Protein backbone atom coordinates (compact mmCIF):
# COMPACT_ATOMS: atom_id res chain seq x y z
CA UNK A 1 0.00 0.00 0.00
CA UNK A 2 2.88 2.37 0.78
CA UNK A 3 4.36 1.80 -2.64
CA UNK A 4 0.96 2.22 -4.20
CA UNK A 5 0.50 5.49 -2.34
CA UNK A 6 3.91 6.78 -3.40
CA UNK A 7 3.30 5.77 -6.98
CA UNK A 8 -0.08 7.49 -7.13
CA UNK A 9 1.28 10.54 -5.34
CA UNK A 10 3.91 11.19 -7.96
CA UNK A 11 1.23 11.20 -10.63
CA UNK A 12 -1.04 13.57 -8.76
CA UNK A 13 0.37 16.48 -10.65
CA UNK A 14 1.16 14.74 -13.89
CA UNK A 15 2.50 17.76 -15.69
CA UNK A 16 4.89 18.73 -12.93
CA UNK A 17 6.19 15.21 -12.52
CA UNK A 18 6.55 14.92 -16.25
CA UNK A 19 8.52 18.15 -16.53
CA UNK A 20 10.78 17.09 -13.66
CA UNK A 21 11.34 13.70 -15.18
CA UNK A 22 12.00 15.23 -18.58
CA UNK A 23 14.67 17.49 -17.13
CA UNK A 24 16.35 14.55 -15.45
CA UNK A 25 15.93 12.51 -18.61
CA UNK A 26 17.69 15.02 -20.83
CA UNK A 27 20.37 15.79 -18.30
CA UNK A 28 21.16 12.11 -17.97
CA UNK A 29 21.34 11.75 -21.74
CA UNK A 30 23.62 14.75 -21.94
CA UNK A 31 25.80 13.56 -19.09
CA UNK A 32 26.05 10.04 -20.44
CA UNK A 33 26.89 11.35 -23.90
CA UNK A 34 29.48 13.69 -22.49
CA UNK A 35 31.08 10.96 -20.48
CA UNK A 36 30.91 8.58 -23.40
CA UNK A 37 32.56 11.12 -25.68
CA UNK A 38 35.23 12.04 -23.15
CA UNK A 39 36.02 8.45 -22.35
CA UNK A 40 35.99 7.62 -26.04
CA UNK A 41 38.36 10.47 -26.88
CA UNK A 42 40.78 9.46 -24.13
CA UNK A 43 40.66 5.85 -25.18
CA UNK A 44 41.28 6.88 -28.76
CA UNK A 45 44.14 9.11 -27.77
CA UNK A 46 45.69 6.52 -25.50
CA UNK A 47 45.29 3.87 -28.13
CA UNK A 48 47.11 5.97 -30.68
CA UNK A 49 49.84 7.10 -28.36
CA UNK A 50 50.56 3.67 -26.97
CA UNK A 51 50.55 2.02 -30.35
CA UNK A 52 53.43 4.25 -31.47
CA UNK A 53 55.29 3.84 -28.26
CA UNK A 54 54.99 1.52 -25.36
CA UNK A 55 51.92 -0.51 -26.21
CA UNK A 56 49.29 -0.93 -23.50
CA UNK A 57 51.37 -3.30 -21.49
CA UNK A 58 55.02 -4.32 -21.65
CA UNK A 59 56.80 -7.30 -20.28
CA UNK A 60 60.46 -6.77 -19.39
CA UNK A 61 63.07 -8.63 -17.51
CA UNK A 62 62.67 -7.59 -13.91
CA UNK A 63 64.61 -4.41 -13.27
CA UNK A 64 64.77 -3.25 -16.88
CA UNK A 65 62.57 -0.20 -16.41
CA UNK A 66 64.85 1.27 -13.78
CA UNK A 67 67.97 0.55 -15.75
CA UNK A 68 67.15 0.53 -19.40
CA UNK A 69 70.23 -1.19 -20.67
CA UNK A 70 70.66 -3.94 -23.18
CA UNK A 71 72.33 -5.85 -20.38
CA UNK A 72 68.87 -6.22 -18.84
CA UNK A 73 67.49 -7.98 -21.87
CA UNK A 74 66.08 -11.51 -21.85
CA UNK A 75 65.87 -14.52 -24.14
CA UNK A 76 62.88 -14.75 -26.43
CA UNK A 77 60.51 -17.23 -24.87
CA UNK A 78 57.81 -19.19 -26.72
CA UNK A 79 56.06 -19.89 -23.44
CA UNK A 80 55.81 -16.19 -22.73
CA UNK A 81 54.41 -15.56 -26.20
CA UNK A 82 51.77 -18.20 -25.60
CA UNK A 83 50.72 -16.74 -22.29
CA UNK A 84 50.40 -13.35 -23.87
CA UNK A 85 48.54 -14.42 -26.97
CA UNK A 86 46.17 -16.50 -24.85
CA UNK A 87 44.65 -13.30 -23.49
CA UNK A 88 41.73 -12.72 -25.76
CA UNK A 89 41.82 -8.92 -25.32
CA UNK A 90 45.38 -8.88 -26.65
CA UNK A 91 45.20 -8.22 -30.36
CA UNK A 92 48.91 -8.31 -31.12
CA UNK A 93 52.22 -8.50 -29.38
CA UNK A 94 55.62 -7.42 -30.60
CA UNK A 95 59.07 -8.27 -29.31
CA UNK A 96 61.46 -5.35 -29.40
CA UNK A 97 65.11 -4.78 -28.69
CA UNK A 98 65.94 -1.27 -27.70
CA UNK A 99 69.22 0.49 -27.11
CA UNK A 100 71.21 3.61 -27.82
CA UNK A 101 73.89 4.34 -30.36
CA UNK A 102 75.81 7.07 -32.08
CA UNK A 103 74.77 7.42 -35.69
CA UNK A 104 77.14 9.04 -38.14
CA UNK A 105 77.06 10.15 -41.70
CA UNK A 106 80.23 11.42 -43.39
CA UNK A 107 80.46 14.59 -41.38
CA UNK A 108 77.84 14.43 -38.60
CA UNK A 109 77.14 12.32 -35.53
CA UNK A 110 73.97 12.14 -33.47
CA UNK A 111 72.85 10.19 -30.42
CA UNK A 112 69.98 7.97 -31.46
CA UNK A 113 67.55 5.41 -30.15
CA UNK A 114 67.81 2.08 -31.93
CA UNK A 115 64.79 -0.13 -32.10
CA UNK A 116 64.95 -3.71 -33.29
CA UNK A 117 61.57 -4.73 -34.65
CA UNK A 118 59.75 -7.56 -36.38
CA UNK A 119 58.78 -5.47 -39.40
CA UNK A 120 55.45 -7.00 -40.44
CA UNK A 121 54.21 -7.47 -36.84
CA UNK A 122 55.23 -3.94 -35.99
CA UNK A 123 53.44 -2.57 -39.01
CA UNK A 124 50.16 -4.09 -37.89
CA UNK A 125 50.32 -1.99 -34.75
CA UNK A 126 52.01 1.22 -35.68
CA UNK A 127 51.19 1.27 -39.38
CA UNK A 128 54.84 2.19 -39.83
CA UNK A 129 54.75 1.40 -43.51
CA UNK A 130 52.20 4.18 -44.13
CA UNK A 131 54.55 6.66 -42.57
CA UNK A 132 57.36 6.10 -45.06
CA UNK A 133 58.02 9.38 -46.80
CA UNK A 134 61.00 8.24 -48.83
CA UNK A 135 62.20 4.80 -49.92
CA UNK A 136 60.63 1.55 -48.78
CA UNK A 137 59.67 -0.33 -45.65
CA UNK A 138 62.04 -3.01 -44.36
CA UNK A 139 61.39 -6.73 -44.07
CA UNK A 140 62.83 -9.09 -41.48
CA UNK A 141 65.64 -10.40 -43.69
CA UNK A 142 66.91 -6.97 -44.73
CA UNK A 143 70.34 -5.78 -43.76
CA UNK A 144 69.25 -2.18 -43.92
CA UNK A 145 67.36 0.24 -41.71
CA UNK A 146 64.83 3.05 -41.41
CA UNK A 147 65.69 6.56 -40.26
CA UNK A 148 63.22 9.00 -38.80
CA UNK A 149 62.69 12.04 -40.95
CA UNK A 150 64.26 14.60 -38.63
CA UNK A 151 67.27 12.45 -37.99
CA UNK A 152 67.87 11.88 -41.69
CA UNK A 153 67.71 15.61 -42.26
CA UNK A 154 70.14 16.29 -39.43
CA UNK A 155 72.61 13.76 -40.72
CA UNK A 156 72.05 14.86 -44.30
CA UNK A 157 71.16 11.34 -45.38
CA UNK A 158 68.80 9.96 -48.02
CA UNK A 159 67.70 6.50 -49.01
CA UNK A 160 70.57 4.54 -50.44
CA UNK A 161 73.12 6.36 -48.29
CA UNK A 162 75.00 4.53 -45.59
CA UNK A 163 74.85 5.21 -41.89
CA UNK A 164 77.37 4.06 -39.32
CA UNK A 165 76.15 2.95 -35.90
CA UNK A 166 78.45 2.75 -32.94
CA UNK A 167 77.47 1.48 -29.53
CA UNK A 168 78.17 -0.92 -26.75
CA UNK A 169 76.82 -4.44 -27.17
CA UNK A 170 75.57 -7.03 -24.73
CA UNK A 171 77.79 -7.28 -21.65
CA UNK A 172 80.35 -4.83 -22.91
CA UNK A 173 80.93 -6.31 -26.34
CA UNK A 174 81.68 -3.69 -28.91
CA UNK A 175 78.90 -3.01 -31.34
CA UNK A 176 79.34 -1.33 -34.64
CA UNK A 177 77.82 -1.58 -38.06
CA UNK A 178 77.43 0.10 -41.40
CA UNK A 179 73.99 -0.13 -42.97
CA UNK A 180 72.23 1.36 -45.96
CA UNK A 181 69.17 3.51 -45.39
CA UNK A 182 66.17 1.79 -46.95
CA UNK A 183 63.49 4.24 -45.98
CA UNK A 184 62.74 7.44 -44.15
CA UNK A 185 59.79 7.62 -41.78
CA UNK A 186 57.79 10.55 -40.54
CA UNK A 187 56.68 10.40 -36.89
CA UNK A 188 54.07 12.69 -35.39
CA UNK A 189 55.97 12.80 -32.14
CA UNK A 190 58.87 15.29 -32.51
CA UNK A 191 60.94 13.33 -30.04
CA UNK A 192 60.75 10.14 -32.09
CA UNK A 193 61.02 12.04 -35.34
CA UNK A 194 64.51 13.30 -34.58
CA UNK A 195 65.93 10.28 -32.79
CA UNK A 196 64.64 6.96 -33.99
CA UNK A 197 66.46 4.31 -35.98
CA UNK A 198 64.46 1.14 -36.71
CA UNK A 199 66.00 -2.06 -37.97
CA UNK A 200 65.09 -5.73 -38.25
CA UNK A 201 65.47 -7.26 -34.80
CA UNK A 202 67.76 -10.07 -36.02
CA UNK A 203 70.12 -7.55 -37.56
CA UNK A 204 70.22 -5.57 -34.36
CA UNK A 205 70.80 -8.72 -32.28
CA UNK A 206 73.75 -9.50 -34.54
CA UNK A 207 75.22 -6.01 -34.26
CA UNK A 208 74.82 -5.87 -30.47
CA UNK A 209 76.06 -9.41 -30.07
CA UNK A 210 72.79 -10.27 -28.37
CA UNK A 211 71.48 -13.35 -30.12
CA UNK A 212 67.78 -14.08 -29.41
CA UNK A 213 67.72 -11.33 -26.83
CA UNK A 214 64.93 -8.78 -26.52
CA UNK A 215 64.27 -5.97 -24.06
CA UNK A 216 60.51 -5.93 -24.17
CA UNK A 217 57.34 -7.53 -25.44
CA UNK A 218 54.70 -4.90 -26.12
CA UNK A 219 51.05 -5.84 -26.01
CA UNK A 220 48.35 -4.16 -28.04
CA UNK A 221 44.68 -4.38 -27.25
CA UNK A 222 41.43 -3.25 -28.72
CA UNK A 223 40.62 0.39 -28.18
CA UNK A 224 38.92 0.73 -24.81
CA UNK A 225 39.78 -2.79 -23.67
CA UNK A 226 40.03 -3.38 -19.94
CA UNK A 227 43.77 -3.14 -19.49
CA UNK A 228 43.75 -3.51 -15.70
CA UNK A 229 42.02 -6.84 -16.04
CA UNK A 230 44.55 -8.17 -18.57
CA UNK A 231 47.40 -6.94 -16.45
CA UNK A 232 45.99 -8.68 -13.40
CA UNK A 233 45.62 -11.91 -15.32
CA UNK A 234 49.15 -11.72 -16.68
CA UNK A 235 50.60 -11.08 -13.27
CA UNK A 236 48.77 -14.12 -11.96
CA UNK A 237 50.06 -16.47 -14.67
CA UNK A 238 53.57 -15.17 -15.18
CA UNK A 239 56.74 -15.61 -13.24
CA UNK A 240 56.98 -12.20 -11.62
CA UNK A 241 60.30 -13.01 -10.06
CA UNK A 242 61.70 -12.90 -13.56
CA UNK A 243 59.52 -10.49 -15.40
CA UNK A 244 58.07 -7.08 -14.70
CA UNK A 245 54.71 -6.28 -16.22
CA UNK A 246 54.02 -2.59 -16.67
CA UNK A 247 51.16 -0.68 -18.18
CA UNK A 248 51.33 2.58 -20.05
CA UNK A 249 50.19 4.54 -17.03
CA UNK A 250 53.35 3.46 -15.26
CA UNK A 251 55.55 3.92 -18.29
CA UNK A 252 54.06 7.27 -19.31
CA UNK A 253 52.91 8.88 -16.07
CA UNK A 254 52.82 12.33 -17.68
CA UNK A 255 50.22 11.24 -20.21
CA UNK A 256 48.15 9.73 -17.47
CA UNK A 257 48.38 12.93 -15.47
CA UNK A 258 47.25 15.02 -18.40
CA UNK A 259 44.25 12.78 -18.91
CA UNK A 260 43.34 12.68 -15.24
CA UNK A 261 43.60 16.45 -15.05
CA UNK A 262 41.39 16.77 -18.09
CA UNK A 263 38.87 14.39 -16.61
CA UNK A 264 38.65 16.47 -13.47
CA UNK A 265 37.55 19.37 -15.65
CA UNK A 266 34.93 17.20 -17.30
CA UNK A 267 33.60 16.17 -13.93
CA UNK A 268 33.11 19.80 -13.00
CA UNK A 269 31.01 20.42 -16.11
CA UNK A 270 28.96 17.30 -15.51
CA UNK A 271 28.72 18.23 -11.84
CA UNK A 272 27.15 21.56 -12.77
CA UNK A 273 24.73 19.73 -15.01
CA UNK A 274 23.69 17.54 -12.14
CA UNK A 275 23.43 20.46 -9.79
CA UNK A 276 20.91 21.98 -12.17
CA UNK A 277 18.76 18.87 -12.19
CA UNK A 278 19.16 18.40 -8.49
CA UNK A 279 17.56 21.79 -7.92
CA UNK A 280 14.77 20.96 -10.33
CA UNK A 281 14.00 17.71 -8.60
CA UNK A 282 14.39 19.38 -5.24
CA UNK A 283 11.81 22.00 -6.14
CA UNK A 284 9.32 19.33 -7.08
CA UNK A 285 9.95 17.33 -3.94
CA UNK A 286 9.63 20.44 -1.84
CA UNK A 287 6.31 21.35 -3.46
CA UNK A 288 5.04 17.81 -3.19
CA UNK A 289 5.82 17.91 0.51
CA UNK A 290 4.53 21.41 1.19
CA UNK A 291 1.17 21.08 -0.42
CA UNK A 292 0.37 17.91 1.46
CA UNK A 293 0.93 19.15 5.00
CA UNK A 294 -2.73 18.75 5.93
CA UNK A 295 -2.74 15.25 4.51
CA UNK A 296 0.36 14.38 6.52
CA UNK A 297 -1.48 15.74 9.56
CA UNK A 298 -4.44 13.44 8.91
CA UNK A 299 -2.15 10.46 8.43
CA UNK A 300 -0.31 11.14 11.66
CA UNK A 301 -3.56 11.78 13.51
CA UNK A 302 -5.01 8.41 12.51
CA UNK A 303 -1.83 6.68 13.61
CA UNK A 304 0.76 6.64 10.83
CA UNK A 305 4.25 6.79 12.27
CA UNK A 306 6.50 9.56 11.01
CA UNK A 307 9.07 7.00 10.05
CA UNK A 308 6.61 5.33 7.72
CA UNK A 309 5.49 8.65 6.32
CA UNK A 310 9.11 9.56 5.68
CA UNK A 311 9.56 6.28 3.86
CA UNK A 312 6.67 7.13 1.53
CA UNK A 313 8.11 10.55 0.81
CA UNK A 314 11.52 9.01 0.11
CA UNK A 315 10.05 6.40 -2.19
CA UNK A 316 8.37 9.19 -4.12
CA UNK A 317 11.52 11.17 -4.85
CA UNK A 318 13.22 7.94 -5.54
CA UNK A 319 10.70 6.79 -8.07
CA UNK A 320 10.86 10.09 -9.91
CA UNK A 321 14.64 10.05 -10.11
CA UNK A 322 14.84 6.36 -10.85
CA UNK A 323 12.32 6.31 -13.69
CA UNK A 324 13.80 9.40 -15.28
CA UNK A 325 17.37 8.14 -14.97
CA UNK A 326 16.52 4.76 -16.36
CA UNK A 327 14.67 6.38 -19.24
CA UNK A 328 17.63 8.70 -19.80
CA UNK A 329 20.09 5.84 -19.93
CA UNK A 330 17.89 3.83 -22.24
CA UNK A 331 17.45 6.91 -24.38
CA UNK A 332 21.19 7.55 -24.51
CA UNK A 333 22.07 4.01 -25.53
CA UNK A 334 20.90 4.13 -29.17
CA UNK A 335 22.49 7.55 -29.58
CA UNK A 336 25.80 6.24 -28.34
CA UNK A 337 25.62 3.13 -30.47
CA UNK A 338 24.80 5.23 -33.50
CA UNK A 339 27.72 7.58 -32.96
CA UNK A 340 29.93 4.61 -32.27
CA UNK A 341 29.17 3.44 -35.81
CA UNK A 342 29.15 6.92 -37.29
CA UNK A 343 31.68 8.88 -35.27
CA UNK A 344 31.74 12.64 -35.49
CA UNK A 345 34.58 13.60 -37.83
CA UNK A 346 36.70 16.65 -37.43
CA UNK A 347 37.52 18.77 -40.40
CA UNK A 348 39.94 21.62 -41.08
CA UNK A 349 42.67 22.52 -38.63
CA UNK A 350 41.74 19.95 -36.02
CA UNK A 351 41.78 17.24 -38.63
CA UNK A 352 45.26 18.35 -39.74
CA UNK A 353 46.48 18.21 -36.18
CA UNK A 354 45.07 14.73 -35.68
CA UNK A 355 46.57 13.66 -39.01
CA UNK A 356 50.01 14.89 -38.09
CA UNK A 357 49.88 12.60 -35.06
CA UNK A 358 48.66 9.82 -37.26
CA UNK A 359 45.34 9.72 -35.48
CA UNK A 360 41.95 9.37 -37.05
CA UNK A 361 40.19 12.73 -36.62
CA UNK A 362 37.06 11.47 -34.92
CA UNK A 363 35.19 11.65 -31.63
CA UNK A 364 34.61 8.02 -30.85
CA UNK A 365 32.00 7.31 -28.18
CA UNK A 366 32.70 4.76 -25.55
CA UNK A 367 29.87 2.34 -24.80
CA UNK A 368 31.60 0.99 -21.76
CA UNK A 369 29.18 -0.09 -19.09
CA UNK A 370 30.73 2.08 -16.43
CA UNK A 371 29.79 5.21 -18.36
CA UNK A 372 26.20 4.25 -17.58
CA UNK A 373 26.60 2.86 -14.11
CA UNK A 374 28.60 5.89 -13.05
CA UNK A 375 25.83 8.26 -14.07
CA UNK A 376 23.22 6.04 -12.49
CA UNK A 377 25.17 6.02 -9.28
CA UNK A 378 25.44 9.81 -9.27
CA UNK A 379 21.72 10.28 -9.80
CA UNK A 380 21.06 7.63 -7.20
CA UNK A 381 23.02 9.59 -4.62
CA UNK A 382 21.40 12.87 -5.59
CA UNK A 383 17.99 11.25 -5.18
CA UNK A 384 18.96 9.82 -1.80
CA UNK A 385 20.28 13.15 -0.66
CA UNK A 386 17.18 15.04 -1.75
CA UNK A 387 14.76 12.50 -0.35
CA UNK A 388 16.55 12.55 2.97
CA UNK A 389 15.88 16.26 3.14
CA UNK A 390 12.17 15.74 2.45
CA UNK A 391 12.05 12.90 4.92
CA UNK A 392 13.62 15.06 7.59
CA UNK A 393 11.03 17.71 6.93
CA UNK A 394 8.33 15.13 7.56
CA UNK A 395 10.13 13.96 10.64
CA UNK A 396 10.13 17.38 12.23
CA UNK A 397 6.39 17.69 11.65
CA UNK A 398 3.82 17.82 14.44
CA UNK A 399 0.42 16.32 13.67
CA UNK A 400 -1.44 19.24 15.18
CA UNK A 401 0.49 21.87 13.21
CA UNK A 402 0.20 19.89 10.00
CA UNK A 403 -3.54 19.52 10.50
CA UNK A 404 -4.00 23.25 10.82
CA UNK A 405 -2.45 23.98 7.45
Amino acid sequence: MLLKMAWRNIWRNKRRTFITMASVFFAVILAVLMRAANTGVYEHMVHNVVSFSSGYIQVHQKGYWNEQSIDNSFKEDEKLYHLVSDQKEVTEFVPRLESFALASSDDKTKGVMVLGIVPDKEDKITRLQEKIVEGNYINSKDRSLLLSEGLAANLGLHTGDTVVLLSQGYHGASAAGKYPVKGIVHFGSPELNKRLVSMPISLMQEMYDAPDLITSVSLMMKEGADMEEVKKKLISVMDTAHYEIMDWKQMMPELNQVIEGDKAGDYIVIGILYLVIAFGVFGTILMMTRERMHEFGILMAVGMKKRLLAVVVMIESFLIAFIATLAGMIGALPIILWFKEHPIRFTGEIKKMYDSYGMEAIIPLSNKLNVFTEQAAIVFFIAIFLSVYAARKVYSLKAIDALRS
Partner: protein
Amino acid sequence: MEVVIDAHNITKVYNEKSIPVNAVNGVHLHLERGEFTALVGPSGSGKTTLLNIIGGLDHVSEGQVIINGTDITNMSDNKLIDFRLNNIGFVFQSYNLIPVLTAKENVEFVMLLQKKSKAEREKRVLELLREVGLEDKVNIRPSELSGGQQQRVAVARALASKPQFVLADEPTANLDSKSASNLLDIMARLNKEENMTFIFSTHDQRVIDKARRVITLVDGKVASDEKR
Protein backbone atom coordinates in the same frame (compact mmCIF):
# COMPACT_ATOMS: atom_id res chain seq x y z
CA MET B 1 -20.18 1.96 33.82
CA GLU B 2 -16.87 1.89 32.04
CA VAL B 3 -15.08 5.23 31.88
CA VAL B 4 -13.58 5.99 28.49
CA ILE B 5 -12.47 9.60 28.86
CA ASP B 6 -11.47 11.02 32.18
CA ALA B 7 -10.09 14.54 31.94
CA HIS B 8 -9.36 16.72 34.96
CA ASN B 9 -8.89 20.42 35.10
CA ILE B 10 -7.92 20.71 31.44
CA THR B 11 -6.29 24.05 30.81
CA LYS B 12 -4.70 25.20 27.60
CA VAL B 13 -2.95 28.50 27.17
CA TYR B 14 -1.67 29.40 23.70
CA ASN B 15 1.23 31.81 23.23
CA GLU B 16 2.21 31.63 26.86
CA LYS B 17 5.27 33.76 26.19
CA SER B 18 3.75 36.57 24.11
CA ILE B 19 0.03 37.34 24.31
CA PRO B 20 -1.45 34.41 26.21
CA VAL B 21 -4.81 33.06 24.99
CA ASN B 22 -6.70 31.02 27.53
CA ALA B 23 -8.43 28.64 25.12
CA VAL B 24 -9.57 26.06 27.67
CA ASN B 25 -9.86 26.84 31.31
CA GLY B 26 -10.15 24.12 33.95
CA VAL B 27 -12.50 21.75 32.18
CA HIS B 28 -13.50 18.44 33.74
CA LEU B 29 -14.78 15.84 31.32
CA HIS B 30 -16.06 12.40 32.14
CA LEU B 31 -17.31 10.15 29.34
CA GLU B 32 -18.59 6.63 29.67
CA ARG B 33 -18.68 3.89 27.13
CA GLY B 34 -21.56 4.17 24.70
CA GLU B 35 -22.18 7.87 25.18
CA PHE B 36 -23.22 10.04 22.23
CA THR B 37 -22.12 13.50 23.20
CA ALA B 38 -22.24 16.87 21.48
CA LEU B 39 -19.78 19.57 22.41
CA VAL B 40 -21.31 22.94 21.59
CA GLY B 41 -20.48 26.55 22.03
CA PRO B 42 -19.77 29.64 20.01
CA SER B 43 -16.80 29.87 17.71
CA GLY B 44 -13.63 30.36 19.69
CA SER B 45 -15.05 28.79 22.83
CA GLY B 46 -12.36 26.12 22.87
CA LYS B 47 -14.10 23.08 21.36
CA THR B 48 -11.34 22.20 18.91
CA THR B 49 -8.67 22.75 21.51
CA LEU B 50 -10.42 20.48 24.00
CA LEU B 51 -11.04 17.76 21.42
CA ASN B 52 -7.40 17.88 20.27
CA ILE B 53 -6.29 17.40 23.85
CA ILE B 54 -8.51 14.43 24.61
CA GLY B 55 -7.62 13.04 21.18
CA GLY B 56 -3.93 13.03 22.06
CA LEU B 57 -3.08 15.53 19.34
CA ASP B 58 -2.14 18.37 21.66
CA HIS B 59 -0.71 18.71 25.13
CA VAL B 60 -2.31 20.44 28.07
CA SER B 61 -0.86 23.42 29.87
CA GLU B 62 -2.36 22.05 33.04
CA GLY B 63 -4.52 19.10 34.01
CA GLN B 64 -4.60 15.41 33.29
CA VAL B 65 -6.03 13.23 30.53
CA ILE B 66 -6.78 9.56 31.09
CA ILE B 67 -8.10 7.49 28.21
CA ASN B 68 -9.50 4.12 29.11
CA GLY B 69 -7.24 3.98 32.13
CA THR B 70 -4.07 5.18 30.40
CA ASP B 71 -2.66 8.53 31.42
CA ILE B 72 -1.61 10.23 28.18
CA THR B 73 -0.90 13.64 29.69
CA ASN B 74 2.83 13.42 29.33
CA MET B 75 3.10 10.83 26.60
CA SER B 76 5.66 11.63 23.89
CA ASP B 77 4.43 12.64 20.43
CA ASN B 78 5.75 9.42 18.99
CA LYS B 79 4.03 7.20 21.51
CA LEU B 80 0.86 9.19 21.04
CA ILE B 81 0.77 8.28 17.35
CA ASP B 82 0.56 4.62 18.28
CA PHE B 83 -1.89 5.35 21.04
CA ARG B 84 -4.17 7.20 18.65
CA LEU B 85 -3.97 4.39 16.14
CA ASN B 86 -5.31 1.84 18.58
CA ASN B 87 -7.59 3.93 20.79
CA ILE B 88 -9.06 6.92 19.00
CA GLY B 89 -11.02 7.35 15.77
CA PHE B 90 -10.95 10.76 14.10
CA VAL B 91 -13.36 12.59 11.85
CA PHE B 92 -12.31 16.09 10.94
CA GLN B 93 -14.27 18.94 9.44
CA SER B 94 -13.21 18.31 5.85
CA TYR B 95 -10.45 16.87 3.66
CA ASN B 96 -10.36 13.86 5.89
CA LEU B 97 -9.37 11.35 3.29
CA ILE B 98 -6.17 10.53 1.46
CA PRO B 99 -6.91 11.61 -2.11
CA VAL B 100 -4.81 8.93 -3.80
CA LEU B 101 -6.54 6.09 -2.01
CA THR B 102 -9.99 4.71 -2.84
CA ALA B 103 -12.80 4.66 -0.29
CA LYS B 104 -11.94 1.08 0.57
CA GLU B 105 -8.20 1.77 0.82
CA ASN B 106 -8.80 4.80 3.03
CA VAL B 107 -10.72 2.67 5.49
CA GLU B 108 -8.32 -0.23 5.18
CA PHE B 109 -5.27 1.93 5.77
CA VAL B 110 -5.58 2.21 9.55
CA MET B 111 -6.05 -1.54 9.80
CA LEU B 112 -2.91 -2.00 7.74
CA LEU B 113 -1.07 0.23 10.18
CA GLN B 114 -2.41 -2.05 12.91
CA LYS B 115 -1.04 -5.00 10.94
CA LYS B 116 -4.40 -6.73 10.75
CA SER B 117 -4.63 -9.74 8.46
CA LYS B 118 -5.91 -9.33 4.95
CA ALA B 119 -8.97 -11.46 5.60
CA GLU B 120 -9.89 -9.43 8.66
CA ARG B 121 -9.34 -6.17 6.81
CA GLU B 122 -11.45 -7.17 3.82
CA LYS B 123 -14.29 -8.28 6.02
CA ARG B 124 -14.40 -5.25 8.29
CA VAL B 125 -13.85 -2.66 5.57
CA LEU B 126 -16.70 -3.94 3.44
CA GLU B 127 -18.91 -4.29 6.48
CA LEU B 128 -18.22 -0.69 7.54
CA LEU B 129 -18.71 0.72 4.07
CA ARG B 130 -22.03 -1.09 3.93
CA GLU B 131 -22.97 0.37 7.30
CA VAL B 132 -22.34 3.90 6.06
CA GLY B 133 -24.23 3.13 2.86
CA LEU B 134 -21.31 3.21 0.46
CA GLU B 135 -21.02 -0.40 -0.62
CA ASP B 136 -21.29 0.75 -4.23
CA LYS B 137 -18.46 3.30 -3.88
CA VAL B 138 -15.78 0.93 -2.67
CA ASN B 139 -13.30 1.62 -5.45
CA ILE B 140 -14.03 5.30 -5.91
CA ARG B 141 -11.51 7.96 -4.98
CA PRO B 142 -12.49 10.82 -2.65
CA SER B 143 -12.52 13.44 -5.39
CA GLU B 144 -15.41 11.63 -7.03
CA LEU B 145 -17.43 11.42 -3.82
CA SER B 146 -19.77 14.10 -2.50
CA GLY B 147 -18.89 15.91 0.72
CA GLY B 148 -21.42 13.83 2.63
CA GLN B 149 -20.05 10.59 1.17
CA GLN B 150 -16.53 11.62 2.06
CA GLN B 151 -17.53 12.22 5.67
CA ARG B 152 -19.22 8.83 5.76
CA VAL B 153 -16.01 7.19 4.56
CA ALA B 154 -14.20 9.10 7.30
CA VAL B 155 -16.62 7.73 9.87
CA ALA B 156 -16.05 4.22 8.54
CA ARG B 157 -12.30 4.76 8.81
CA ALA B 158 -12.65 6.09 12.35
CA LEU B 159 -14.34 2.85 13.34
CA ALA B 160 -12.08 0.52 11.39
CA SER B 161 -9.38 0.42 14.06
CA LYS B 162 -11.98 -0.50 16.74
CA PRO B 163 -11.09 2.52 18.88
CA GLN B 164 -12.20 3.36 22.42
CA PHE B 165 -14.09 6.35 21.10
CA VAL B 166 -14.63 8.43 17.98
CA LEU B 167 -13.87 12.10 18.07
CA ALA B 168 -15.41 14.34 15.42
CA ASP B 169 -14.64 18.05 15.21
CA GLU B 170 -17.51 19.74 13.38
CA PRO B 171 -18.03 16.80 11.03
CA THR B 172 -21.08 18.39 9.42
CA ALA B 173 -19.80 21.95 9.09
CA ASN B 174 -19.31 21.66 5.34
CA LEU B 175 -22.40 19.58 4.60
CA ASP B 176 -25.88 20.51 3.47
CA SER B 177 -28.55 19.81 6.06
CA LYS B 178 -29.74 16.58 4.45
CA SER B 179 -26.23 15.08 4.32
CA ALA B 180 -25.60 16.37 7.82
CA SER B 181 -28.60 14.66 9.32
CA ASN B 182 -27.84 11.51 7.31
CA LEU B 183 -24.30 11.44 8.73
CA LEU B 184 -25.61 11.92 12.26
CA ASP B 185 -28.11 9.09 11.78
CA ILE B 186 -25.31 6.81 10.70
CA MET B 187 -23.19 7.82 13.68
CA ALA B 188 -26.15 7.28 16.00
CA ARG B 189 -26.78 3.87 14.55
CA LEU B 190 -23.13 2.83 14.92
CA ASN B 191 -23.25 4.17 18.46
CA LYS B 192 -26.13 1.81 19.17
CA GLU B 193 -25.08 -1.20 17.14
CA GLU B 194 -21.38 -1.23 18.02
CA ASN B 195 -21.80 0.51 21.37
CA MET B 196 -19.22 2.99 20.05
CA THR B 197 -18.62 6.13 22.10
CA PHE B 198 -18.87 9.37 20.12
CA ILE B 199 -18.00 12.92 21.01
CA PHE B 200 -18.51 15.57 18.36
CA SER B 201 -18.45 19.32 18.28
CA THR B 202 -21.02 21.28 16.33
CA HIS B 203 -23.07 24.44 16.30
CA ASP B 204 -25.83 23.04 14.13
CA GLN B 205 -29.05 22.86 16.19
CA ARG B 206 -30.41 19.88 14.25
CA VAL B 207 -27.22 17.98 14.97
CA ILE B 208 -27.35 18.97 18.62
CA ASP B 209 -30.89 17.59 18.78
CA LYS B 210 -29.63 14.11 17.95
CA ALA B 211 -27.16 14.01 20.85
CA ARG B 212 -28.01 12.31 24.08
CA ARG B 213 -25.71 14.51 26.07
CA VAL B 214 -24.82 18.12 25.32
CA ILE B 215 -21.86 19.88 26.86
CA THR B 216 -21.73 23.62 26.28
CA LEU B 217 -18.47 25.49 26.39
CA VAL B 218 -18.24 29.23 26.83
CA ASP B 219 -14.89 30.96 26.98
CA GLY B 220 -13.07 27.71 27.58
CA LYS B 221 -15.28 26.69 30.50
CA VAL B 222 -18.14 24.24 30.78
CA ALA B 223 -21.28 26.36 30.96
CA SER B 224 -23.73 23.48 31.00
CA ASP B 225 -23.76 19.69 30.78
CA GLU B 226 -27.12 18.04 30.23
CA LYS B 227 -28.12 14.47 29.56
CA ARG B 228 -31.34 13.64 27.74
